[in-house]
């Protein structure tokens, strides 16, 4: 789907220019795909909306006192009692859908990024330890990972939330538990490949301390595939959070995320009040598609097989 593929060339991915900084190459390669640039643009826009939601949104949807039940289930464009016009309508509680979506994006993105970052660190530590030390450490860690990955993510998350209860911290914990194993397995694969390379051997011969080899040499070289996995996992964390909220075990109802907004509107959808479910659904779709577009292109660039 890249522009380069439209004009047939014998070598689709041109070799890196001599002496070019790696990040420059990444930017240059990334910009070649207009779908990825479109995805990035969307993502930046969504992130900005999420960050500045309190300034941009017409209403604070989490402030119960500012909602009016007399304005509930108003169709998009309708003006309520207080004279406020609801561009995307209101939900069953009288919440402005536009504001609720902006705040919902904030929660969805926040939960996704925070849980993935922590899961990434845990996964890195476990994966690197397994790959570097090998032997029994490797076996123990990787069997735990295998066991973990053999359960469906949604099942683990559901059980955890049933035990822990509701709340934003609880759902982040559940997502971390679900995701760290994926990171651990990926980083172990990458690290195993790197570990056999000569520069590690050279570093060991130089008598460098182990922590310096692992964090100074092994880790940076494992990062490219991790960045790809990280991006894609954020998207799946957001989708999983939405699923859990839809099932009613996620976030508290007074602070709806996108999944909870969809769930709340679901009961009205057969009665023709589509907007309560549909607009948060579109917002969720845009967010996940944008992240995946960016993630796909990153994978294409950072995959060494494509660069040769």
């Amino acid at each position: 789907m890249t522009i380069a593929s439209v004009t047939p060339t014998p070598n689709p991915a041109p070799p890196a220019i001599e002496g070019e900084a790696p990040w420059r190459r990444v930017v240059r390669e990334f910009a070649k795909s207009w779908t990825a640039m479109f995805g990035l643009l969307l993502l930046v826009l969504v992130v900005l909306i999420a960050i500045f939601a309190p300034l941009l949104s017409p209403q604070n949807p989490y402030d119960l006192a500012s909602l009016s039940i007399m304005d509930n289930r108003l169709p998009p464009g309708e003006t309520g009692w207080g004279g406020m016009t609801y561009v995307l309508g209101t939900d069953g509680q009288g919440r402005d859908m536009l504001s609720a979506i902006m705040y919902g994006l904030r929660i969805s993105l926040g939960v996704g990024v925070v849980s993935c970052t922590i899961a990434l660190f845990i996964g890195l530590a476990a994966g690197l330890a397994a790959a570097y030390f090998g032997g029994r450490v490797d076996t123990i860690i990787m069997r735990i990972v295998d066991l973990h990955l053999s359960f469906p993510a949604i099942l683990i998350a559901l059980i955890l939330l049933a035990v822990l209860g509701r709340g934003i911290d609880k759902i982040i914990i559940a997502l971390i538990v679900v995701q760290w194993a994926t990171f651990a397995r990926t980083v172990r694969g990458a690290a195993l490949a790197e570990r056999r390379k000569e520069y590690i051997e050279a570093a060991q011969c130089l008598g460098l301390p182990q922590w310096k080899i692992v964090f100074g040499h092994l880790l940076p070289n494992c990062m490219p595939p991790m960045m790809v996995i990280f991006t894609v996992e954020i998207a799946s964390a957001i989708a999983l959070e939405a699923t859990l909220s839809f099932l009613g075990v996620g976030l508290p109802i007074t602070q709806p995320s996108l999944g909870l907004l969809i769930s709340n509107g679901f009961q009205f959808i057969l009665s023709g009040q589509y907007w309560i479910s549909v607009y948060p659904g579109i917002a969720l779709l845009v967010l996940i598609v944008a992240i995946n577009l960016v993630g796909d292109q990153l994978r294409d660039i950072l995959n060494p097989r494509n660069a040769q």
Partner: protein
Amino acid sequence: MKTTLRTLALGTAFAALMAGSPALAQSLTVALQAEPSSIDPQFATTGQNQQIALNMFDTLVRFSDTGGFAPSLATEWSVAEDELTWTFSLRDDVTFHDGSPFTADDVIFSVERVAAIENSPAPFAQRVANIASITALDDYTIEVVTTDPAPTLLNDLGTIYIVSDEIGDGVGSDQFGFGDAAIGTGAYRFVSYTPGDRLVIARNDAYWGDVPDFEEIAIRFISSDASRVASLQAGEVDMIDAVPPNDLDRLRALDGVEVISAASARMVYMGFDQGGETTPMVTGTDANPFLDRRVREALALAIDRQAIVSRIQFDSGEPAGQFGPEGIFGHNPDLAPTEYNPERARELLAEAGYPEGFGLTVHGPNDRYINDGIVTQTVGQMWAQIGLDVGVETLPFNVYSPRATAREFSAFLFSFGITTGETSLGLRNVLATFDEARGWGSNNRFRYSNAEFDETLGAAFAEFDEAERERLLQEAARIAMEDFAITPLYWEGNNWAVRAGLVFTPSPDGRSLMTNLSSAD
């Protein structure tokens, strides 16, 4: 309308014979949400069983539309000076569906059979537990002696379905499904039953009361809300019950469909923990604010009940100010729902020492009552508007209910549905001081306790004179409501939809009775 070949043939034959009265030959198909657990009217006291039984069987007395009891198979009753001996006079013009006459022996057989029913999830047996003896003085008079004075005997004995003594002893409840045993005196007679699908009943032309308009009614059991509504819209059925509230507006707008809504006797309320000096879900104060009557009154004043009924209940149901709606025995006509007055609520909070409010997490179920999750949030919203710092948590009922019973909540939503036609059980179970040994206050999860209330209610339970008993129940309701023991929100609505040309007249019990269905012309 769905017509089988047989009913079509019947209809044609009738049309030929009795031209000019087509309504009499009409047959209907009706879809109900809940299927009974047995066709045996004496098997269980559950709502879905009784609403089927009432079509085919009669009782000695029935609930009158104005509260209290009206004659049915019994024409008169009286209790002797000893408060133990009751005499019932029976109708002498009633025959069973098989043509045999109804006599005192059938009543005695029915009462004795009740105690022999096995494996019932909700047995009638406790309703006859107090009866020491039952004898026939003649064919149409019976005498009942109770072991203790039993002011509620009419409610207990009077609501037992009378079956024919012709069926004999030892007939199991499952045999009623085949028809040989399902012989009653009711307005409709049993035709056939296919478990999980339908029950077919036909008009009893020899009925002693008003003979129904319809030749035959097939009652289908469709538990899925969406399927039931779709069947009505597709013309497969002529009436449905339990219309999902979120579909009310859409069905009301449809041509050829009539929606009937009536407030039920299920009152949804907010309870406040008044069991101790502290309460778990309140922050910002060391005390339990709900011990102060002014706080309870303020929270009651802050709720716009009409808005909840119109915006969240889709105009079905009614704002409530007590347990029993009009038509229920013990309803107090002087108790109106609390007026919405947020200004006064803020003043009262300030007077009680909470000018800045306090922190409170409100709890409610999210899958039990109609839009209960949204109602809970709305109550929280209205309390936030008088200055409380409100959080809301809603839970599935099977998680919520045990936690509420374990008294983990401070302000929470619950309901009580009256099934006995009077307010006594609601007042006793919900508002009386919690006393496990005595069985009082079994639903009093917030531990309200008021000696004056307990005394008045106790007097009502010992009173034989119906008028005085009602006055005492009304007085008990007044004491509790003026003390803001709980905050009643609304009576949940019951909703039916019928095809144009049919009339459904809801009775106070909210049951989907075929005897309440008639033809418009």
